[in-house]
């Protein structure tokens, strides 16, 4: 287990590993969120300013222009983290999310505490305190996370897609799961692999999967033919 992982025991007693997001993922999520909130605040500010400067009321600009724009800017994180249960659009795009130290969903109280401590974390500028704290702590947390008992983890929800796919491919091909996974991996990375390397791999896989095929027999096949054969093998068309 690397130092960037946290092993916790689930409620059923089965252990799971949480991949802790580092300073890079955290900063990336923050920068996306910062741009989003700035753009939304400006999207309010400019039209409101345009309308307010043409209205007769002396105090209209402050009332309708600045306050909502500032509210959008400063309340973006606490409001969205509460509504999206520990996530924000930026965190989603960066593939991270907030959890408690037990891997659960943070409570509203924890999320508010986490956001109150932005006052300290953002000091003296550009979240320097938060960033230093994040670099120095084992679980890559800022002071707000320490206070709230939260962690920022890498959200691996995308990998669940392969769950149904693996079963289907095993059923289709009739091959052992480890072979199916290998073929699927090679096909997935086909375009990025060197031609000689991928052809060599394809020949070894095909000759092992089908005893009628020999390396000499496969040597005459082109790159495209080998790719088609692998696909056919995975689809159970032998």
């Amino acid at each position: 287990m690397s130092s960037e992982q946290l092993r916790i025991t689930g409620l059923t007693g089965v252990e799971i590993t949480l991949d802790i997001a580092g300073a890079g993922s955290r900063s990336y999520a923050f920068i996306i969120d910062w741009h989003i909130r700035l753009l939304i605040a400006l999207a309010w500010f400019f039209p409101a300013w345009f309308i307010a400067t043409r209205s007769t009321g002396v105090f209209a600009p402050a009332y309708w222009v600045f306050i909502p724009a500032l509210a959008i800017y400063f309340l973006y994180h606490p409001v969205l983290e509460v509504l999206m249960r520990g996530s924000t659009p930026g965190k989603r795009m960066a593939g991270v999310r907030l959890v408690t130290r037990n891997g659960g969903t943070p409570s509203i109280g924890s999320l508010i505490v986490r956001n109150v401590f932005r006052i300290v974390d953002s000091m003296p500028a550009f979240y320097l305190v938060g960033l230093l704290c994040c670099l120095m702590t084992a679980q890559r947390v800022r002071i707000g996370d320490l206070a709230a008992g939260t962690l920022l983890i890498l959200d691996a929800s995308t990998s669940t897609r392969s769950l149904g796919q693996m079963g289907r491919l095993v059923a289709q091909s009739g091959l052992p799961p480890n072979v199916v996974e290998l073929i699927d991996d090679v096909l997935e990375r086909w375009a990025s692999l060197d031609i000689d390397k991928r052809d060599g791999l394809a020949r070894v896989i095909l000759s092992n999967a089908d005893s009628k095929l020999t390396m000499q027999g496969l040597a005459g096949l082109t790159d495209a033919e080998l790719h088609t054969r692998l696909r056919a093998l995975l689809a159970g068309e032998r």
Partner: protein
Amino acid sequence: MSNDHAAGAWLKSRTAVWNDWLTQAQQPWRGLTVDEAQRRVDRYRAIARDLATARRLLPSSRATSALEALYRSAHASIDVSAGLTRWRLAHLFRDEIPEAVASLRPTILWLALLTCVSAFAGWWLITHYPDLIVLTASERMIEDVEQGHLWTDNLLNVTPSSILSLNILSNNIFVSAFAFCAGILFGLGSFYIVAINGLMLGALFAFTAQHGIDDQLLRFILAHGPVELSVICIAGAAGTSLGESLIRPGALSRRDSFQRAARRAARVLLACAMLLVGCGFIEGYISPNPGIPMISRAIIGGCYWFIMLALLKRRRVPLVPH
């Protein structure tokens, strides 16, 4: 049957179930009936069983990783604290906040004393060294006082009460939150902010007294000042408790002790923020209004302070859930 065949057969047999789980995982967790929630809990247990089997039959396979991800996601959905019900809110304001404030009472009193001492120090300092007022007041404030009027006199002509209130209350909430967060410096940050606050108050009183308008300053702060100053002391005490949790963590680790203190003190901060909203309205609508007499201001200030005490007073009998 070899391990490969057993794994293949098991994968095939579970595929339909997993596809079903993946579909269900996309559905929202809010607004479930008890039966639906129970089914989700059963599904969580089933995922745990499959994960254990996958780890045995297919260690380090993609299917195992995917099951782990599904289990993590289901775990995050199951391990959720109870939502904010009406009873929970009532319990928070009626029992938990007063309980937290009561535990901070000695520190609050010490900080109130610190405010008084630093206010006296500020008053003494400016009385004996008037030039030092530049350290606590802006140039505009000094100019206004030297011309014989307070910087707050024309406040309503410049800004409407609504904007003034919002501006003041957001500033006050920030100061209180800062006094709380500064407690992370082993409590010293909170002490510093409370002391500076008292020092400024005393200095401004001494400076206005030198120009014969200290009664106007008293008149301005009388309605909102008592609660505002008390809230800063309370927020400072909450911050000090953070510092104490780091200095004396007891049987817990410093991290756990800090987390526990932060969660308890955050409740106090919530009460502070709510009280400061009231202060902001008074400071925006009443304090700068020259038409309101001194006695009315004293009554408003006194009443609001007693309301604060009543809200933060510990109840003998805690609220019982229905």
